[in-house]
């Protein structure tokens, strides 16, 4: 026996979250983790089928929440769903949640919205929790200092039946952004700049912690956007240590602890941070002052460039594999090497998705659009029905419709297109979403990712554009 006290080695925020949830660990390193919240949506039907196949029911209905978002129509909500296949997807979710006593934020619930917007909004997402959902952007919830990650259908079934999950521990990566961002820079610009720097698979196998003064300065909305995009850098999850901004956001939310229990929680949550000497497997740093508005030009999210840049030229690329990728991407995107990004004309815009459809995102877009007209058609789908309601109270809906854009109901909508909101084949869309993959917004659709303000700038310009001159003299 060692007689002196064991010194606790300094640990990272992620280590703390991991060890809090570890029930047991096998010899091969896999740990059984306890799941605090499990979100399900229409796409979770595979998981429910597997569970039913074993004749089982949901083990912990009170920790499971259903949200109708992926397939819901964004128009004519008062009428029955026209497309029978889509109606069936929504019905299956209603059935599966009802059969198991699981709370559902369904199609006509005033709290309905995109799962990664609803969780935080309802106070279901709390610091220190472990949250899973059969959706890769579950990383979003990490904004609260939460261990949150996307899982597949077999794992959904496992969580439904046991409220636990086997996991191998990811490596730890810290991304530090210090300094102050300049005017007109959004969390989306920070996130896309990071992804462009480390690449779409740069954080594979890692849990990311975002740190530094520029991250601290972000609102909860901004942190949610940042953590949301962790998966586009390949990260298993992304997180920000909770602080006063976090606690202020949570206070009074419907499912957040109340009164003395809230005070106790804040005490616990305040300890959720990386120790000073904690070691990370990988460190990346970024200077906030150097970040400019960015847009993507290609077919993966790491194809992000400053708006005043030029489309890459494959003939100047030394690496043949890279050159061949660029040729293929330019061909799909129908743009020429060396052309100015601001010369790329667009056909439509989309403001929506779990990345960028919270109230601050809508305000940022509206600040640019106010008193101006969009040169192209476009769709605005708020992140949740409550965000929609608030935006209408603030008169933002009028700004969008006066500019010529459509103001729709909340859902995943044109982010993935499975509810029928598609970018027509061959059209080019400036979008606040998260994936510019080939065919993501519809077969043959061409997607340029950017912040809500930059989408608004593209709308009023008719082509990709720098939002900063358009903000001159405006209050944002």
């Amino acid at each position, binding site marked *: 026996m060692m007689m002196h006290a064991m010194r606790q080695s300094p640990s990272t925020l992620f280590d703390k979250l991991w060890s809090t949830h570890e029930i047991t660990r096998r010899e091969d390193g896999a740990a059984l983790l306890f799941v605090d919240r499990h979100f399900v949506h229409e796409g979770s039907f595979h998981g429910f089928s597997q569970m039913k196949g*074993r004749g089982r029911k949901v083990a912990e209905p009170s920790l499971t929440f259903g949200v109708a978002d992926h397939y819901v129509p964004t128009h004519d909500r008062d009428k029955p769903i026209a497309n029978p296949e889509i109606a069936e997807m929504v019905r299956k979710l209603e059935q599966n949640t009802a059969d198991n006593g699981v709370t559902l934020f369904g199609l006509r619930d005033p709290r309905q919205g995109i799962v990664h917007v609803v969780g935080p909004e309802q106070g279901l997402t709390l610091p220190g929790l472990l949250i899973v959902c059969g959706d890769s952007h579950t990383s979003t919830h990490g904004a609260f200092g939460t261990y949150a990650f*996307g899982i597949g259908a077999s794992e959904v079934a496992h969580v439904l039946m046991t409220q636990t999950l086997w996991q191998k521990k990811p490596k730890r990566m810290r991304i530090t952004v210090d300094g102050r961002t300049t005017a007109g820079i959004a969390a989306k610009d920070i996130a896309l700049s990071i992804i462009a720097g480390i690449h779409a698979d740069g954080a594979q196998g890692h849990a990311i912690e975002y740190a530094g003064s520029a991250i601290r300065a972000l609102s909860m909305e901004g942190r949610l956007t940042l953590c949301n995009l962790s998966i586009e850098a390949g990260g298993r999850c992304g997180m920000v240590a909770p602080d006063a901004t976090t606690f202020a956001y949570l206070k009074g939310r419907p499912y957040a602890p109340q009164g003395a229990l809230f005070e106790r929680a804040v005490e616990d949550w305040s300890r959720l941070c990386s120790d000073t000497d904690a070691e990370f497997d990988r460190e990346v740093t970024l200077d906030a002052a150097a970040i400019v508005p960015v847009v993507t030009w290609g077919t*993966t999210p790491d194809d992000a460039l400053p708006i005043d840049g030029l489309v890459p030229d494959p003939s100047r690329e030394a690496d043949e594999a890279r050159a061949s990728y660029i040729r293929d991407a330019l061909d799909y995107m129908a743009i020429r090497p060396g052309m100015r990004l601001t010369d790329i004309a667009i056909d439509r815009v989309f403001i929506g998705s779990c990345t960028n459809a919270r109230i601050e995102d809508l305000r940022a877009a509206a600040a640019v659009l106010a008193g101006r007209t969009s040169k192209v058609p476009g769709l605005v789908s708020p992140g949740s029905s409550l965000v929609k309601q608030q935006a209408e109270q603030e008169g933002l809906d009028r700004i969008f419709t006066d500019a010529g854009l459509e103001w729709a109901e909340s859902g995943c909508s044109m982010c993935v297109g499975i509810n029928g909101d598609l970018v027509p084949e061959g059209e080019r869309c400036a979008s606040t979403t998260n994936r510019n993959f080939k065919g993501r917004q519809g077969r043959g659709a061409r997607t340029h990712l950017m912040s809500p303000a930059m989408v608004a700038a593209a709308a009023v310009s008719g082509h990709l554009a720098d939002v900063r001159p358009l903000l001159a003299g405006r209050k944002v």
Partner: protein
Amino acid sequence: MEKFDRLTARACPLPQPNINTDAILPARFLKWPREKGLGSVLFQDLRVGADGKEDPAFPLNQPMWHGAKVLVAGRNFGGGSSREAAVYAVYDYGFRCVIAPSFGDIFAQNAVKNGLLTAAVSDADASEIAAAVTADPARDVTVDLAQQTISCGNRVYGFAIDPVSKNQLLNGWDDVDLTESYRQQIEDYRKVDLQARPWAPIGRR
């Protein structure tokens, strides 16, 4: 779940990097139930042009790759969406192993649960294997999970896989049964946790 130990089969090269799960299985097929089988729409938008015609240049459309059980892919295969149906499509088509320099984390995790081996090799080895099977499509490759080797012609390549996934594939373990054997530990954990984090659960407050 079917075990995986050793496989000798034809290997189809698909060396492009970043083939994400949207490309493996476009979102419009996500409504399909598993029983329908998703193999017929694997890589649908890469295989079939907008005009509805098969692209003859796409490897899976070439007769010499029919019946391949191994796919030799590029870097970051299966990144993006968590859709497990992408794994169903790869598996239902007939593939039992994907060789690539790296994989999307969630894809790799989903693969294990379905008996699909994701074998990670170096960039150089992936290119070499792809070149070898392109030059001689009839040449079978042998993938040995216990040894973590891929034999192709007279070359033998090592591949990486984490011990947890290896264990599960070799044994064909069923996670749920395994977890049930830890029922007591789970209950004990919850008792202690309720004291430590009284604010965490809902419904027990």
